[in-house]
């Protein structure tokens, strides 16, 4: 990964937007700049961050997975049920992660081996896994979770919640995974051109299934965080949240066609969305305005730079004199 300033352009834009968002939020509400409040509010976004991280390799490969929220639900109710049956976390967590990774792998197999379009497959598993979550959870869901499963929800290092630190760590791991391992290189390659990749010997199917399994596992882990933070689990957990996760990944400048995108940008995108949302909520901005702002952000963040580029192109096209100058330049150089 070239670390030139140019390739980190989108991250710079995000940072600028975050600063503006922070300024705006603090004018909206005097409660915004309180570090304790900010850290409390940021805990809310841990679950979405983990799902977004899991979605990232999949989108880089040029596919999509909208069933992650349902996988989270399965993870959360599974952990809940295991927890109340007295199974220790050191057994319960890996078991759940395995199951969720398997659910992800099913998506991967259907996409990579059977060749079905990923949007449709995950549309189907979105419903199917949600059903499984309901079946496991039963009518009333799970409560009365033993203490050891709840530590991640409340533990802190100083004033910083452990779950937030976890997010930063996972972001770092994801960056390393995508930038420095074969899996990462294969993913970008598949996303750019999967046919060429296959001919070049890249194990396309295995990499795809791997990415989906990883996505499932991260959703399962997010399920653990859910149980830890909300001390309960129900079949409808996280229902409808997948659009927010897709928004975050898109806002991170990851091309939906695959082949590009940086992992740190995903974290920055969540920070941006979080800053805006927290600011609005602290000021009790009406719910409808909140929806409008987030929706507009998506369109503006990509649309405005494009508008500017189009305008530039149009203006430049009105200056034919410049072209002859350029040609002259070339001629001079070749002679020399």
């Amino acid at each position: 990964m070239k670390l030139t300033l140019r390739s980190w352009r989108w991250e710079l834009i995000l940072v600028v937007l975050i600063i503006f968002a922070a300024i705006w939020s603090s004018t909206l509400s005097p409660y915004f700049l309180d570090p304790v409040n900010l850290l409390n509010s940021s805990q809310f976004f841990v679950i979405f961050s983990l799902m977004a991280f899991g979605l990232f390799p999949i989108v880089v490969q040029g596919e999509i997975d909208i069933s992650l929220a349902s996988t989270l639900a399965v993870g959360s109710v599974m952990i809940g049920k295991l927890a109340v049956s007295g199974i220790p976390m050191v057994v319960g967590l890996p078991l759940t992660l395995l199951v969720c990774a398997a659910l992800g792998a099913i998506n991967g197999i259907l996409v990579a081996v059977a060749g079905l379009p990923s949007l449709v497959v995950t549309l189907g598993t979105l419903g199917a896994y949600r059903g499984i979550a309901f079946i496991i959870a039963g009518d009333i869901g799970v409560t009365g979770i033993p203490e050891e499963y709840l530590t991640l929800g409340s533990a802190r290092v100083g004033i910083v919640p452990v779950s937030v630190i976890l997010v930063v760590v996972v972001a770092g791991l994801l960056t390393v995974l995508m930038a420095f391992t074969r899996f990462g290189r294969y993913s970008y390659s598949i996303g750019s051109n999967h046919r060429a990749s296959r001919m070049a010997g890249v194990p396309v199917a295995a990499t795809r299934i791997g990415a989906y399994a990883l996505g499932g596992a991260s959703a399962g882990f997010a399920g653990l965080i859910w149980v830890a933070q909300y001390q309960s689990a129900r079949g409808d957990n996280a229902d409808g949240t997948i659009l927010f996760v897709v928004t975050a990944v898109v806002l991170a400048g990851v091309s939906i066609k695959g082949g590009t995108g940086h992992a740190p940008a995903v974290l920055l995108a969540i920070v941006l969305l979080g800053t805006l949302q927290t600011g609005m909520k602290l000021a009790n901005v009406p719910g409808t305005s909140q929806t409008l702002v987030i929706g507009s952000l998506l369109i503006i963040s990509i649309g405005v730079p494009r508008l500017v580029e189009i305008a530039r192109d149009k203006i430049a096209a009105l200056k034919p004199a410049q072209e002859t100058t350029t040609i002259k330049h070339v001629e001079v150089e070749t002679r020399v």
Partner: protein
Amino acid sequence: MSAGIKTLTRRFSFTKGAGALRGRFIGVLVFLAMLIVVFSILNPRFLSFDNGRSILFTAAILAIAATGQSLVVLTGNLDLSVGSIMGLVAYVVFDISGKVPELQPFVLVIAILIGGFLGFLNGFFVSVLQIPSIVATLGTLSIYRGFVSFYGNAREITSGTLPPWMRELAMAIWLGLPAYVWVAFTVVIITGLTLRYHPWGRKLYAYGSNPEAAHFYGFSSTQIVTGAYTGAGIIAATGGLLLGAQVGNINSLLASGIELQVLAAVVIGGVSIWGGSGSVYGAAIGAVVLATINNGLVMVQVQEFYRLLIQGAAIILAVAVDALVQKRALGATTRRRIMEVES
């Protein structure tokens, strides 16, 4: 089995133009037949004319929405804002017509104007600003829905204020079938014929199959994509209006979440998510498939928990069947052509 398909494909020439479209169409019909057989065995009441009529009625609006979505999907894009457009149009138009009764005969015209505008905006974002369609329509989904919430302010529109002619349309039965079914039928046929015979329709398919080639051929992608989205907006607006009249009491959340169902219907119906192939007839049948599943599960008294599981599995199965039939059909004909060339 493959011999039968060979004959079928020879008969209907699945490799050329319109024939290829028919190929994808068969897949969804096969799946629908499978469903009908399974449900009829599990509960013979399923096969009654009354029940069939009920299924068609519940499929009607979804079929209309799926038709509109097909236009967009055929260009290789998506329209996730269809639910928001439907809800916005239904709420705003019926609110206005409730306050200004003189406008009641014109609700369809107003709806088409609003829906066309919203669709045009989508098209603008996607083709001019080149925002990827998932992103753009995800954004407009929130913006349009946010607008309805803002406009409606949690007020409900009651059925008494709806134009009486629309209310009657929701209840009417023409020639044994509900009026809505006939309306859906008409929308699907008109759109299908336009796509098949009108130059713009053929341009749409060409562009969807190969955007670069279409560009070199001189087609304006902006025109085609914007046109597709505008058309989808108009059709969605019509569907929204009908939905509002059917539901009676309208709140600002009407049709929210329908986009995933619409996409499912379109894909089940054999419209390729990558664009360029499939037909609106298939999408309409896809809507019927979804309605059949929903109805059948109630018929068979399946618990809610299992319903989600079965619906999800059914979607995957439908696409798999479709892919299988497609592969078989193409495989049979391709082999034949290779043999022909050699001899």
